């Protein structure tokens, strides 16, 4: 039986005022399995009839739902039952005796509760066990926990915590918080829990929406906060006192009373070291488990460890930053079209440079669409960052003296780049001259006709060809969005009339100028400058480094590039790596180019322009404006 199920059962019977399940069924602790079976069946039938009765609803539903579990515990796993609920468990008997005596002497207060928990831990009993027994014995003795009656339904809950709101939230914020929590609570699957939550939320809201009652509650909450601290210290002292007394036997009521008398003053006594180290917190409830513990032994490089954990959940990470770290990116540097002059019949080999601009493997293919263009290797080497694909151009296979063709690189991750080839074969002079002559005449005629046509017609709408560096900027004309991306062909409003051109990109200073296009076409390159208030973000969150700052960045991209060049780094993207020690302290800043030898990394200290603040959490942070990747290594 799972621990959680057992705890649920225990809590349920304790909440009904029965110390053990058998007591609830009205059976002696040594009842025979037959008698237990009969009692269980009888109670289940009762539950079935009472499931709609408002008074017994939750009890009946619990019995119906956990009937099998209760049966298993009482009949099949009797030894577990005995261990947990008493008979033959000396630790529990000791705890019971102690609780009873303490309650009789000192009443039921938070101090007592904390002391009992401490004692329970000494006996290696779980807090929940201690609380359940404390609750049931207190109920037997007709005791009410002090402080409970004042707070009513809300009990000792912190309302603000319940509403997930800050104690100094405005009424409007509180209302939003209440509504959100209410909606959430209602969508819970565990109906019992939902019911309790809704009741508590309702009660909280009734308090908080009335300013007077809220003020009262706030005052009381402040008091409670102080009290908790005191209780913590007091209980520690009490635990210590009791611990001395109960090494061999149950403490006498006098010892307990004495301990309790001293307890409230405990906060003033000298600091005492905890009796035993705090029980180690269980590991965080990760349901997603790495095949190998990520913090410890990673498989040595080159020896991938194949692990699969059956029945366990396996992590699925989110986020573009994870992807960016890994995803390959195809970069083909050849400028299309490639114009080549081929010899008359001898084939030549031309190298197509293919780069992996991202990370990870990049398998792919190289294909050609004509016979005279033959990639001599038709697959990409997946592991290689920069590779050259030899392409053979065979003039003998050309059908004429010129040819148009293309080579396409297709990666398995779905990117493709096409490079166009325009080739011309060396020919004899005469046909070439003839060709030139014909072309000249045709060209002249066409130009003449074109000029005549220009004169006949009103000027055509102007065209502005715009190149933006860095790319992916937003371009607007006279305030309305015109385009976004790197290269644009834009149509300005009117030929010969000035208009306002604005190019902006986050992190860069916006560029704005009045432009007049009076020719039919107009080329312009706009280079954006880094803005001073460029925000450094990673995954949408500002990067904050606790009390550490680095002066890293130069004002302009060109300056930064010069800085990189001076360090022997020539290609972007570049990785800035913060070296951090185990304690989270930043030890250094490495800068390295993609694909370069990592050992060649050198610290970069550029001119002081702005402070970059980073949180030393491991991860990859991207600084979008420069497509720098900032890796924080654990």
């Amino acid at each position, binding site marked *: 039986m799972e621990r959680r199920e057992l705890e649920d059962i225990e809590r349920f019977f304790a909440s009904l005022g029965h110390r053990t399940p058998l007591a609830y069924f009205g059976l002696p602790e040594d009842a025979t399995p037959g008698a237990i079976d009969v009692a269980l069946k009888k109670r289940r039938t009762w539950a079935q009839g*009472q499931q709609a009765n408002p008074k017994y609803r939750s009890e009946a539903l619990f019995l*119906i739902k956990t009937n099998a579990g209760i049966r298993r515990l009482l009949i099949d796993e009797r030894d577990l039952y005995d261990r947990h609920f008493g008979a033959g468990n000396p630790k529990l008997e000791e705890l019971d005796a102690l609780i009873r005596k303490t309650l009789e002497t000192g009443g039921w207060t938070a101090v007592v509760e904390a002391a009992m928990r401490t004692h329970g831990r000494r006996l290696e009993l779980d807090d929940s066990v201690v609380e359940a027994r404390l609750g049931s014995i207190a109920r037997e003795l007709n005791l009410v926990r002090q402080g409970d009656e004042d707070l009513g339904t809300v009990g000792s809950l912190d309302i603000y915590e319940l509403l997930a709101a800050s104690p100094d939230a405005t009424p409007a914020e509180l209302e939003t918080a209440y509504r959100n929590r209410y909606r959430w609570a209602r969508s819970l699957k565990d109906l019992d829990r939902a019911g309790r939550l809704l009741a508590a939320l309702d009660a909280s809201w009734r308090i908080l929406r009335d300013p007077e009652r809220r003020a009262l509650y706030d005052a009381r909450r402040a008091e409670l906060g102080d009290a908790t601290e005191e209780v913590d210290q007091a209980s520690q002292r009490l635990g210590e006192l009791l611990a001395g007394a109960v090494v061999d036997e149950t403490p006498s009521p006098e010892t307990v009373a004495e301990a309790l008398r001293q307890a409230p003053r405990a906060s003033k006594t000298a600091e005492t070291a905890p009796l035993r180290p705090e029980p180690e917190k269980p590991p965080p409830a990760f349901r997603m488990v790495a095949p190998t513990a990520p913090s410890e032994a990673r498989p040595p490089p080159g020896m991938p460890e194949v692990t699969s954990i059956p029945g366990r959940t396996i992590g699925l990470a989110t986020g573009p930053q994870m992807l960016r770290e*890994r995803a390959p990116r195809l970069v083909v540097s050849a400028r299309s079209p490639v114009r080549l002059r081929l010899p008359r019949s001898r084939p030549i080999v031309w190298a197509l440079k293919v780069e992996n601009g991202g990370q990870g493997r990049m398998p792919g293919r190289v294909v050609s669409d004509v016979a005279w263009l033959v990639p001599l290797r038709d697959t990409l080497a997946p592991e290689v960052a920069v590779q050259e694909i030899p392409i053979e151009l065979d003039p003998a296979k050309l059908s004429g003296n010129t040819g148009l063709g293309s080579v396409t690189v297709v990666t398995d991750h779905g990117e493709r780049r096409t490079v166009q080839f325009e080739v011309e074969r060396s020919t004899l002079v005469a046909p070439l001259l003839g060709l030139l002559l014909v072309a000249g005449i045709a060209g002249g005629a066409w130009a003449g006709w074109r000029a005549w046509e220009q004169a006949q017609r009103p000027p055509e709408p102007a065209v502005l060809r715009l190149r933006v560096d860095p790319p992916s900027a937003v371009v607007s004309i006279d305030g309305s969005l015109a385009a976004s991306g790197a290269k644009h062909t834009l149509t300005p409003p009117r030929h010969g009339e000035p208009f306002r051109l604005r190019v902006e990109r986050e992190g860069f200073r916006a560029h704005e100028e009045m432009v007049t296009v009076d020719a039919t076409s107009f080329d312009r390159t706009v280079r954006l400058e880094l803005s001073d208030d460029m925000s450094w973000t990673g995954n949408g969150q500002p990067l904050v480094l606790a009390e550490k700052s680095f002066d890293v960045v130069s004002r302009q991209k060109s300056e930064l590039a010069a800085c990189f060049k001076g360090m022997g780094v020539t290609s972007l993207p570049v990785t800035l790596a913060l070296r951090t020690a185990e304690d989270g302290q930043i030890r250094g800043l490495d800068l390295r180019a993609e694909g370069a030898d990592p050992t060649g990394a050198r610290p970069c200290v550029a001119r002081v322009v702005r402070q970059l603040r980073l949180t030393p959490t491991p991860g990859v942070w991207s600084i979008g404006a420069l497509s720098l990747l900032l890796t924080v290594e654990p």
Partner: protein
Amino acid sequence: MSSDDSIILGIDLGTTFSAMAFVDRHGKCNILPNAEGHPTTASVIHFYDKEACVVGEEAVKMVVVDATNVVRFVKRYMGEPDFTLEFFGKSYTPQELSAIILRKLKDDAEEAMGRKIDDAVITVPAYFNAAQRSATADAGSLAGFNVLSIINEPTAAAISYGLERLGTDRNILVFDLGGGTFDVTVMEIRGTSLRTIASDGNAELGGKDWDDRLLNHVADVFQQQFGLDPRDDLQPYQELYERCLHAKISLSTKPLAVIPVNYRGHRAVVAVTREEFEALSADLLQQCEDTCNIVLEKARMKWSDIDDFILAGGSTRMPMVHVMLKRLSGKEAARGVNPDECVAVGAGLAAVFRHRVEHPALQAYRLSTTGAHPEGGFLDPVSNTPMSPKTAGTPVSRTPVGLPGVRITDVATHPLGIVVLDANLKERIINLIPEFTPLPCDKRGRFAYAYDNMTAVRVEVTEGHGDNRDEVTVIGDVILDQLPPRPRGTPIEVVYRYTVNQILEVDVTDVETRQTRRARINLRGSIDEAQKVQARERIRRASIT
């Protein structure tokens, strides 16, 4: 799809009452009374022997006599795992119990129509979650139905109301307070299409809670007088519950109700005025009001934007509901809607619109309206767009006959998300399908290996609002395994596909190897195929009257 003249039953499977309706050849949707002649059938089952039971009014009568063998409010337990009830040594899941009610309806309908009826459309409260929906669909199939789709109750109510008002643009609010569930939905009618804007509700609030308030009050009064609590014994409790239920109903028409209590030889007569009753249940009504406001907020509307509101569900007969809604909206509820029947009628109509596009009544309407339009154009009655004048020249009557087609757009009422690890390997939830996404929809997300050398990824599908696992419900999972081990960051694509029939399919693709796993997620608490076959056989064999 079966032949064109077969009947599809629209079934309102309610917490306390169920009803069924179908569209006849002429396009009229009629409520089909049960074998006893009542338009609605009480959703109550009495087991009088092993696998022999009676459903409806007769079962209600047995409550006070044999309470432990009577089951009611099954709908409240739909989709709950581990919930079974035992009768004569046999245990039944909520799905099976609902199937018994559905089989009673099926038998009665077949008897009345003199033919076999296989197809059905069943309604669920808009706020039902995936598990509850799938349990309802399972119940239908256990009962021997071919469940064509599951539709939302407010949508159905709005169809039956909106049919007369097509062509005008209106926003309507459906206030559906049934025996055990509560829903508020804002819908819009635009031309001939009907779309859900926002919805909220509580699958645990209904007329039953009002009964309980009255019952608790009466029992408290009795306890004060005699020191005995009639709720403690089964039979007196059931008797008292019946009396309170009837008193609640009379309080809707009379200002005073008198409830006699007999328990252990003591007798008390407790008189409750309508004001007292309203005071007892004020917070329940407040919950309804809050929900209305939440829905309007979600729909980004004000009360003044609502053109009509419709009341569905028997509990809306309580005067306090009318008073509250009038105070909020400044309007009266729409007339001409029968709160007990409108959901079933709407379900019958929706069945035809969705699954029987060649229904004779729809064809008749198309024929009668594709004539000369007043402006001289031709309009398609379904899309309201101009048509080619191919039917010009055919004789055309000016008054439309038959049934106009309606396009119904339902939405996902709960956000659906996925459990992932963030950059710090902390768990969080990412919503792939946000709340109120029109169905069908198809949403994809790119994720990645969280650790090096993983060989499998598990997609856990969550439902509900929240950032962490405790705030949402994990409704199922899909595992893509036997993956080659690769470093963290290896991309994985996840696609959620939510169909109009409210079935969620999940595709998980390894982007690099193109390995894909597609699955209808296994909903927690649902029953597997083998159990289903067995249960179907059991329901078929059981004697149900």
